[in-house]
């Protein structure tokens, strides 16, 4: 038998970066084409977010230069606010670092591992540092950044400063990567940028392909979207651990202030209510008879908190205890007390969570994006009002529909989550399922696979429920599924109206002809049956048809008047 101490000799601590180095696929670095797209995505996302937060209409240029076999240089440059010198290593060199990961905010990326992951991917495939050129308007900083994988730290290998007479601001990064491939496939960079341009009509995006070809997706809207704002957590969406940990960190004076200040939809009055619920729960817990207990829980769920309290002798004492707890300093809140509060939240009613933090593209901008990039004959968009799933997580669905024009035959679905194109795992995505569930024939789209139709779907949320860590597919949550369907159906109805109008004019002419063509046949038969001359019978029938359609047109004209 081996000695325990001996076994533990090899015990070592792994760094995060080391962990991710071994699990690059988790971050989207899987497959040669996809890896390149992921790299570009991380950089472009950073650029778009930065510009939006600073209120600048983005101008983004992506350049892919082929250096050798499966060996490329990727350059992404923006006109954003730039990065202050002291944050450079953090932004590019440290995993899990970022401005959003710890906040309750809608963002394109979500984990703060994006761009540093790109830097690391470049580094482990080419061994090269990433060149960063950035300025906030003052001097221009040029820095070569590497990641110390063992320590999870960025380090600047080389740094230069340059004068900036024109006051340029923005960021340009140059990554050298191997083991990737540029292809114009639907999982490649070109397609990714095209989809990004559609969802971000306020951005001007350019791409220089390895063969030197310049592709421009021009800006079609001048309006820069408001940056998303942080939203306080909703009581229905928190765990005991959240409350406990937030209480430990808050600067508020009392539990009451803490609850009112750091959660949404909690008012002074709500805290009073909360006190009653917590007290009631404490009392119910002590009831011995299981049946009676269940009944009390049920009544509580119905909101009969006061009645429930009154059914206990000396309940006021308990209420007072709880009220006292609300006034103590939050850092003294125990785990058990936090648990009680969260349990009470479950029985209480709250307003739906605020949705002002959600930033949909908007109907007008979707239409602009689709028109500008796809040049269709008809376009429409629907942005649904915000909804909530899982009790407390707000989300919003929007849909755009483009038909005809320069769109080739065949149905195409463009999927987005928070404006970010989803290029993989379409099959398991709720958007695909919802789009497929639509009975397109009802909307005059008889043969979907031969109709020149593009459907875009954007799901907006602080927390998009992805099916996997690849974040390429949205889970089939009922509430989201239903909203997507409603949005598509609304848009499809508009398409139907458009298509109907187009066909209606041809229809009346056809209709009259329908009756006229049968007249000779009818006349011949009726002549056999009655002995009257064919000629005359024809005349009777034609006159009848003529007078009918004349009166009919008159009616339609007056209806439209």
């Amino acid at each position, binding site marked *: 038998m081996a000695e325990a101490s001996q076994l533990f000799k090899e015990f070592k601590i792994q760094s995060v970066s080391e962990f991710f180095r071994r699990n690059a696929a988790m971050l989207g670095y899987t497959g040669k084409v996809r890896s390149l797209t992921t790299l570009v995505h991380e950089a472009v996302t950073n650029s778009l977010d930065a510009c939006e937060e600073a209120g600048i209409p983005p101008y983004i240029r992506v350049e892919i230069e082929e250096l050798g076999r499966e060996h490329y240089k990727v350059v992404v440059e923006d006109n954003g606010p730039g990065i202050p010198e002291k944050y450079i290593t953090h932004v590019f060199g440290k995993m899990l670092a970022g401005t959003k990961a710890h906040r309750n905010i809608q963002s394109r990326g979500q984990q703060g591992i994006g761009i540093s992951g790109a830097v690391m991917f470049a580094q482990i495939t080419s061994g090269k540092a990433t060149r960063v050129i950035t300025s906030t308007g003052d001097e221009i900083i040029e820095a070569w950044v590497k990641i110390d994988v063992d320590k999870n730290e960025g380090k600047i290998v080389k740094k230069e400063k340059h004068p900036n007479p024109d006051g340029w601001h923005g960021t340009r990064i140059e990554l050298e990567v191997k083991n990737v491939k540029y292809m114009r496939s639907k999982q490649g960079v070109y397609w990714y940028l095209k989809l990004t341009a559609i969802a971000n009509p306020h951005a001007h995006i350019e791409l220089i392909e390895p063969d030197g070809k310049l592709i421009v997706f021009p800006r079609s809207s001048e309006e820069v979207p408001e940056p998303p704002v942080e939203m306080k957590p909703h009581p229905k969406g928190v765990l005991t651990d959240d409350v406990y940990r937030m209480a430990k960190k808050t600067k508020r004076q009392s539990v009451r202030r803490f609850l009112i200040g750091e959660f949404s939809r909690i008012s002074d009055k709500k805290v009073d209510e909360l006190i009653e619920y917590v007290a009631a729960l404490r009392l119910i817990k002590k009831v011995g008879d299981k049946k009676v207990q269940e009944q009390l829980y049920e009544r509580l769920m119905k909101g009969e908190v006061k009645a429930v309290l009154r059914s206990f002798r000396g309940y006021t004492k308990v209420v007072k205890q709880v009220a006292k707890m609300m006034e103590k300093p939050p850092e003294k809140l125990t785990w058990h007390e936090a648990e009680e509060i969260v349990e009470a939240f479950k029985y209480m009613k709250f307003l739906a969570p605020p949705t002002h933090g959600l930033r949909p593209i908007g109907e007008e901008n979707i239409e602009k994006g689709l028109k500008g990039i796809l040049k269709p004959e008809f376009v429409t968009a629907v942005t649904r009002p915000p909804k909530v799933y899982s009790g407390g997580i707000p989300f919003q669905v929007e849909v755009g529909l483009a038909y005809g024009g320069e769109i080739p035959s065949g149905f195409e679905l463009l999927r987005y989550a928070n404006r970010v194109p989803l290029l993989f795992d379409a099959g398991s995505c709720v958007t695909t399922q919802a789009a497929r569930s639509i009975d397109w024939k009802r909307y005059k789209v008889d043969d979907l696979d031969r109709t020149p139709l593009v459907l875009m779907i954007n799901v907006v949320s602080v927390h998009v429920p992805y099916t996997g860590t690849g974040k390429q597919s949205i889970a089939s949550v009922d509430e989201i599924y239903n909203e997507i369907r409603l949005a598509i159906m609304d848009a499809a109805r508009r398409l139907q109206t458009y298509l109907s109008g187009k066909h209606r004019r041809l229809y009346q002419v056809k*209709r009259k002809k*329908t009756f006229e063509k049968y007249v000779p046949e009818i006349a011949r038969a*009726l002549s056999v*049956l009655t002995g009257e001359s064919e000629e005359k019978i024809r005349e*009777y*029938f034609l006159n009848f*048809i003529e007078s009918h359609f004349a009166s009919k047109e008159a009616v339609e004209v007056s209806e439209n008047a």
Partner: protein
Amino acid sequence: MPKRKVIHREKPKEKFSYDPKKVLSKLEEYGRSVLEAIKSGKNPYFDIPMRGLNNVYFDEKSRLIKMGDKLSRRYFLNVAHARKFMQTLLIMAYVKRLVSEGKHASLREAYYANKHTIPGTRENTFEDQRESDPIIEDLERMLGVLREEMHITADRRGYIYGDIVIRDGEDEFNASKLGSGGWAVPGTVEHIQFPEINVDYALVVETAAMADRLIEEKFPKKENALIIATQGQASRGVRRLIHRLHYEEGLPIIVFTDGDPYGWYIYSTIKQGSINLAYLSDKLATPEARFVGMTMDDIKRYGLENVTEKLKGIPPNKKGGPTGDYKRILEEMEYPWFQNREWQRQLKLALKWGVRIEQQALANKSLEFVAKEYLPEKINSGDLLP
């Protein structure tokens, strides 16, 4: 002289009547009404009794499936109707020509004769026989006449054998003097007459093989019976012949089919008419017909357990059931004319045992058995189902 039988010829209830002029005058009447409508600027139409289950009921008194009084109106000036309106007139004109010239045409000939391209279009007057057949059916209901009376013949199937004399046009012959072949029943039997009938009853037999067996065993002669072989579901010609033999000539009708839902359905159709042709029940059906076999009781009584076949499909108590034969039996149990103790018993036994029994299974006893024992015993003792 033959011994006195339980089953014998009765007094006739109908007389031979067939008048082509009635059809012609009805057609002309409809033509004139259309002409008058259009002349006065009205949208011309036909009122056609509706087809389908919704317009069918079982008349307890006459014990027939009959057509209800629901009408569907077919306009000229209606996009959904115009083509059918035109087609109706075309067929009406064609029927007028057929009847006045004394010619007969098959359904298929009627289709081809009226099919042509409508001038100035790529559309045909009829694209398919599936378009012309329903129009002819509509006319049967509108005019209240058989398609045979409009000189449109049905597919022929079935033959007869027995000591009756048939007059067909100029020919007269005895249907028991035609060798083993018998006389093939034509598509239309309206014009046929029976100068001499020397049989006590007509035995309607489902399969040709069984009819041939009975002929070979000289059953018609020994039992004084007319054999009518339907060769499966009875054709309209055969059903009309049965009807006429019963009502015009007073012959009792006894039906002999396989003991399975299909055989019983054949009996049901002969007896009550079918839902498709409900409007013709009083010309095609023979509610007084009775049923000699095969029954479920026969299996036990004659020891035929060995030669039954399993019912097809899934029983009602199994997953996915009932289907196939089982489903059909359950449907037949709901037929109004099977609402009696005897039939319910047979149908329930079939369900319970899950078997069917064919006419020819009687050959398991011996070839002669059916002609010498089974049928004479059952018929002469009146052991028949209603």
